[in-house]
């Protein structure tokens, strides 16, 4: 069954008003939980009616009683399903930044003071990402995957929680709007030209820097050193971890300049700059960014990379 677009929009607006995204923690309250019978529930109701008709026709008092017992069971299922969601607490965590086109994974933790059964968790109308059972004091850590297409901040869409517990007669569901967002970097350009060939500013710096090309010796391993440079053969011999050091013939530092990339539109420029930032970090070059209204000085390392990518992601936005 397809709902018309305008109705769907109305519905979403109404939901958003009812479930304001106020904080990163939400407890499901009774006025935010919805209940409808499932198709099995309707079939069960029809069967109850059949038993009742039989009871009336054959004037069997106990069959009346049994039909009413079935109604009572339906009612009890409804309450159990409702209680299964009531008071459930959701906390959104900070997701890791991703590049546009990748899937962002929002961490959401479910906590409860009491036992919960078979709660399906998902974003929007998509397939449930997890079926959750919570056995306090333990909670449940779920990752809500959300596809990304645009750089910038991605808000966590409304999370749908649904349960057909205990007897599949009722579908009980609720929405949680958690204030959580994921930073989405621009998609790095796939076949970007090498930043070294662009003839852009090769700014000064030391004549030689530690690079990849010629082996120059070993030094003791320090925390944070790349694992691929550990001299494993050595380590096997003398029980100490050493790092292989190389000398690079070139000492390089690049400033990637927005204004130099003429002939490309804004998003393409951001894509290329993102690709260069990744490549330069990979090559352990020093690099900086020059964006309209924002400059990042020459540096290298993961923190600098994140700063650069963040600047690219949020280019043009107020944040």
């Amino acid at each position: 069954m397809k709902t018309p677009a305008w109705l769907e929009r109305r519905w979403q607006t109404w939901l958003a008003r009812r479930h304001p995204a106020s904080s990163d923690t939400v407890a499901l309250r009774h006025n935010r939980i919805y209940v409808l019978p499932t198709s099995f529930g309707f079939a069960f109701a029809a069967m109850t009616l059949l038993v009742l008709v039989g009871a009336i026709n054959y004037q069997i008092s106990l069959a009346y009683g049994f039909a009413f017992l079935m109604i009572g069971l339906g009612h009890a299922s409804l309450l159990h399903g409702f209680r299964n969601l009531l008071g459930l607490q959701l906390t959104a965590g900070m997701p890791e930044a991703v590049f546009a086109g990748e899937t962002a994974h929002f961490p959401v933790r479910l906590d409860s003071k009491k036992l919960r059964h078979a709660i399906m968790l998902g974003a929007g109308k998509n397939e449930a990402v997890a079926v959750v059972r919570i056995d306090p004091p333990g909670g449940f850590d779920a990752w809500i995957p959300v596809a990304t297409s645009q750089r910038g901040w991605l808000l966590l869409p409304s999370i749908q929680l649904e349960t057909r517990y205990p007897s599949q007669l009722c579908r009980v569901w609720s929405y949680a709007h958690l204030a959580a967002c994921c930073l989405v970097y621009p998609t790095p350009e796939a076949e970007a030209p090498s930043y070294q060939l662009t003839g852009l500013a090769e700014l000064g710096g030391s004549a030689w820097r530690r690079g990849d090309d010629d082996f120059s010796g070993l030094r003791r391993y320090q925390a944070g050193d790349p694992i691929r440079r550990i001299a494993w053969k050595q380590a096997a011999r003398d029980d100490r971890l050493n790092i292989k050091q190389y000398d690079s013939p070139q000492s390089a530092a690049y400033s990637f300049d927005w204004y130099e990339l003429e002939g490309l539109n804004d998003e393409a420029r951001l894509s290329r700059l993102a690709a260069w930032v990744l490549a330069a970090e990979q090559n352990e070059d020093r690099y900086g960014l020059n964006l309209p209204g924002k400059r990042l000085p020459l540096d290298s390392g993961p923190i600098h990379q994140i700063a650069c990518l963040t600047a690219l992601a949020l280019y043009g936005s107020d944040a």
Partner: protein
Amino acid sequence: MKTALRDDLPRLPLYGLVFALLLALLPHLLQLAPWHAAIVLLPLVWRSWLAWQGKALPARWLRLLYAAVLVGIVLLQFNTLLGRDGGVTLLVSLLAVKLLETRQRRDARVLTLLAFFATSAAFLVSQAFWMLAYAAICAIAIIAQLRSWQRLDGKLDVQEYKRASWMMLEALPVMLLLFFLFPRLSGPLWQMPGNDSGAKIGLADDMSPGSFTDLALDDSVAFRADFEGAQPPRNALYWRGPVFEYFDGRSWQQLLNTQRSTPSYEALSPAFSYSITLEPHNRNWLLALDLPAPGALPQGTRLTSRLQLVSNQPVSQRKRVQMQSVTSWRMTDTNVDLAADLQLPAGGNPRARALAQGWAGLPPPARVEAALNYLRSNGFSYTLDAPLLPGQNTIDDLLFNTREGFCEHYSGAFVFLMRAAGVPARVVAGYLGGEKNADYLIVRQTDAHAWAEVWLDGQGWQRVDPTAVVAPGRITRGIAGSVRGAQNLPYLLRDNAAWLNGIRLRWDAVVYGWNRWVIGYDAQRQLQLFGRLGIDDLASPRLLAWLGGIAVLFLAIYAGLHTLQGRHKRPDAAQRLWLRFLRRLARHQLIPARGEGPADFAARAARAMPAQAAAIHAISTAYLAARYRSDAAAQAELTRLVPPFRP
């Protein structure tokens, strides 16, 4: 949201489903022949075995063949696929076959619904009150297996059965409320295909020597009666049933032609109000105490020309009827065709005819008296093991040879004599007496009785009981005290089994309550109950007020429970004393800060009030010991220290 649970059915819930089906089918299987039951049962075992072995389900053609065989058996046994018994057996058979193609949750859902249906259909078999308990057990098994499908680990354990039982308890208030308040209809919505396979029990359609002797040995309940207000004396408790008018020389038959109008009569006694809960006997007649009060016929009944109360439908379910009766009456109709009541076989019984013709000169009441005198004074005895009367002249044999008989012998012989003497007479069968239990009367098959009615000018049909002159005790004391050969009576009917009888009577009271309030709860009973609550109509404001009141009550209980749960636990003794201590200190602007523990606060308070430092320290130490180490001595110390503490 799409479900993320797997669609196939894990093994343990499948076993749970088979178990639930087995329970639901059992009452039906017990109705079938053993070989038939085995054939129906086989798919359950088969499917479980396949699941156990992890094997594939049988081929489609095999399943279809199996289904066809089962349908064929039902057709052969019942000649129909519809109707009550045939339809239910067909359903039960197909339900079992359906299990052979159950591999998905969807199939299992269908079976779950059918299991509910099969459980409710079991009430067609019996409505005894353990049946409801049994149905509840079935429902628990069905719900438990249904619950287990929601489990992520695909298990089914005792927990699920416990939780399912809880759900049943929660369903109970809804069920009771609906049971008593749901409007009951007084008749079927439509007529179902007839199914009169139920055996006829109780009084028979005809009366021949020996037919009542069999009944006297049957101590099952025929009906129960409870009187509102006065109850007639025991010797007036004649429960009138079928009327036998045609005599073929051996047996007495009812006449089928009932086209004549009902004779009118007037009451000579006050009307007794009572209701009868009649056990099903699959015939139309009802049993009424003598004659229904003129103009007070129960709904759905009519009075035949023989003054017999009949129901418009055969009594195939336990039936409760409210009536008014008179025990003394006078016919006001004089224009009654009495030819059938003077009928005699063309020949036979010459001695009896001769005897009766000897009284022909007397006025009719004197002829009646003469016949009774004859029975009283010629050594007749009342016995269960009367000799068989194999000859042609059964009346002669009884009156002049054997002189031993039971009520059917004497009533038959008396009516014969009356007719031979020219007095219109007929045999009436029914029950006499009954056993008092709590506030009602139990009438058993063993109380079955036959008596006579004679037509006297100016009075119309009047009862004459020839047995009363042969064995007066039968009327006043019941069968056990009056009959010879009582050792053949069921043990419980004999006089010496008093203690056992006591238990049985108490049990019967329970069963009767069940029948009266649960089985017999119908439109009439409902109105009666509503009447007691002051509701005279289903659509009345009073009923709405009751419903509203009940709803408010439930909400109040719910809100109360909610508040209780929300509130913190009541502080214990040590805590109460400590709070008192804090209140005293609060007067001096010493209030514990958020997150400040008792020790820290006590230290701060002691610094602020050096004069009280020792007392404050003692109290806080005692409090900590009493509350967190459950130290009884410290508790006593606290009780001693806090009240006099006035900083």
